[in-house]
């Protein structure tokens, strides 16, 4: 219990730091949204101070000293009030984020778990059969595919499987005529649209899991208890899975939490290629339209999700390996 409380305390502290970073980031940067808007207007002629004040009022530019701004900002974050989007006026930022979030969460979540399980199994196999074809093939392919830029894999799959062979839809998360609901037909349609983005993430992230698991597994195989199990005449499969892999998987689990950030980042690029209406595509739209409130809220949302996922992995780890609780 004390362990859990300490972890929760650390999570809250990290969350606070992320929220604060999100507050100071735009304020440390040169220029302001108002300047950007005025620069656009200035191309058509001089801009009067009255226009500037009007733009500031419209954009909801914060006034007052920085401490008041910070307190107001914390209040807004706690009530999930991130203001109004510039681009999708008059929709609120929270509304936009909440419509985009499920798409990314489900797609990235499912793929990450599949990739972790598959990659770990392949890594176990590679380490157990090291020096053979079953080792070199996944290891070398994994090294190469994990160097693929996410968006490149996405573009190639889109071109060959989407346009040339026309096996899969080329953009969006569901057919244009469908409306999102929970009927089996719609879910099947959405799954069909998610195949290409999902396979992209799977191809690019699988290598990391294979290599990571292979490395820890090889270290474990050198341990005395593995030799002892072998000497006792246990079946090789039992030694590999019940003795070595079971212990080797623990360090890999920490990697799971950290790699999540990378996968989420990669999914941003993938969503851009497939125009998949998730958080990444929304962030892309926010950035290209200089929609600062939307951009900041999305960044915060992504960071918080990754922090919470890391927290869950951390707590899980403590229960799987009591030594780390101390």
């Amino acid at each position, binding site marked *: 219990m004390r362990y859990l409380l300490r972890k929760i305390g650390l999570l809250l*502290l*990290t969350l606070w*730091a*992320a929220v604060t*970073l999100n507050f100071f*980031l*735009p304020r440390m*940067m*040169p*220029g302001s949204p108002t300047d950007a808007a005025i620069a656009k207007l200035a191309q058509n002629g001089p801009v009067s101070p009255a226009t500037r004040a009007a733009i500031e009022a419209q954009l909801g530019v914060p006034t007052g000293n920085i401490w008041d701004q910070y307190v107001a900002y914390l209040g807004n974050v706690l009530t999930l009030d991130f203001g109004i989007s510039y681009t999708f006026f008059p929709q609120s930022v929270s509304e936009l984020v909440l419509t985009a979030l499920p798409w990314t969460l489900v797609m990235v979540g499912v793929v990450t778990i599949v990739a972790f399980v598959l990659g770990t199994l392949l890594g176990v196999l590679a380490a157990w059969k090291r020096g053979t074809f079953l080792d070199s093939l996944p290891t070398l392919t994994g*090294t*190469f595919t*994990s*160097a*693929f*830029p*996410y*968006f*490149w894999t996405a*573009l*190639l799959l889109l*071109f*060959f499987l989407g*346009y040339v062979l026309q096996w899969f839809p080329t953009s969006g998360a569901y057919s244009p005529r469908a409306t999102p609901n929970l009927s089996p037909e719609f879910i099947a349609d959405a799954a069909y649209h998610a195949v290409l983005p999902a396979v992209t993430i799977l191809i690019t*992230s699988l*290598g*990391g*899991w294979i*290599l*990571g698991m292979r*490395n820890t597994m090889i*270290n474990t195989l050198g341990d005395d208890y593995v030799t002892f199990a072998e000497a006792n005449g246990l079946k090789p499969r039992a030694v590999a899975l019940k003795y070595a892999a079971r212990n080797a998987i623990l360090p*890999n689990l920490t*990697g799971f*939490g*950290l*790699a*999540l*950030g*990378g*996968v*989420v*980042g*990669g999914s*941003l*690029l993938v969503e*851009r*290629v497939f125009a998949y209406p998730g958080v990444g595509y929304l*962030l*892309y739209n926010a*950035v*290209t339209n*200089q929609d600062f409130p939307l*951009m900041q809220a999305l*960044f915060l949302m*992504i*960071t918080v999700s*990754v*922090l919470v996922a*890391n927290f869950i992995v951390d707590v899980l780890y403590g229960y799987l390996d009591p030594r780390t609780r101390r």
Partner: protein
Amino acid sequence: MTEKQATTRGETAGPTEPAPSGRDEVPDGGADVARVAAAASPLTVLGRAAGTIWSVPKARVGLILLAVFVLTAIFAPLLAPYAPTDNSFGRAEGGSAAHPLGTTTAGEDVLSQLIYGSRVSVLVGLVAGFGATLIAVLLGMSWGYTRGFAADVINFFVNLFLVIPGLPLMIVLAAYLQGGGLSMIIFVVVITGWAWGARVLRSQTQSLRSRDFITAAQFSGESSFRVVFREILPNMTSLITGSFFGAATAAILAESGLSFLGLGNTAMVSWGSMLFWAQNSNAILTGQWVLLFAPGLCIALLATSLTLINFGVDGLSNPRLREGKGR
């Protein structure tokens, strides 16, 4: 992306830990170090390091690949048949004798763009990789050496940067710094890419901190600065080289991602911006698959070459891990 590299890198930290070989335990005084350093010129040391990496077959492939890319980048004006921004050719042509890889929708030669594009990736990889490693070394090693409150503060700070997803942070930073061009991208990549290296170097410093030769150095009255950077640092050559190549790989992938999103300078010819223009000019619809395939393959090959070299760095500071030599 950084994290992805990180999972594979972190594991190599284990076997790299230098075994207490005889040499380590000799309490080198400052004068000794100076004499050894003077005996071997930096060039000889570099040559010997390259030889160690070269002796590992995987790393050898990586070195050759990297050399090809670096040479292409240096001699781009001699190798490229046309200027990369010369758009006086036919639009969206297929491959021909004059344009082996065809032309872009704007009428530029794809092969020339590909050759000049290597400059951006190689430069970003080297500079950002170096910047991120420098921060990682300075912060990671002093963090591993100090105890108490300061270490806790750095710990929190590094862990924060470690879990904040890199690419979204880069995108947000790049959006605020719009129009900054290449130096902006390098800055953003360095800011987001140092945390993993710092953590790996810190744990190694911690384990070296209590070795006999460090205690001896402390008793002989060396300053903490000198102990950290003259006594501990040379033992971590493998890890530092490793984190340099890891950071460089991450930097190259990050630059291409930002350029692909159009957040860098889209007028600058890089592999990422080639893909940006390919996607925006619907190269997919015109069936110009080479335009999609070639730049991405170059990014992947360059990144792979650095990962492969990393298989050879373990032998740098621990002779026992050098292949081909018995224990």
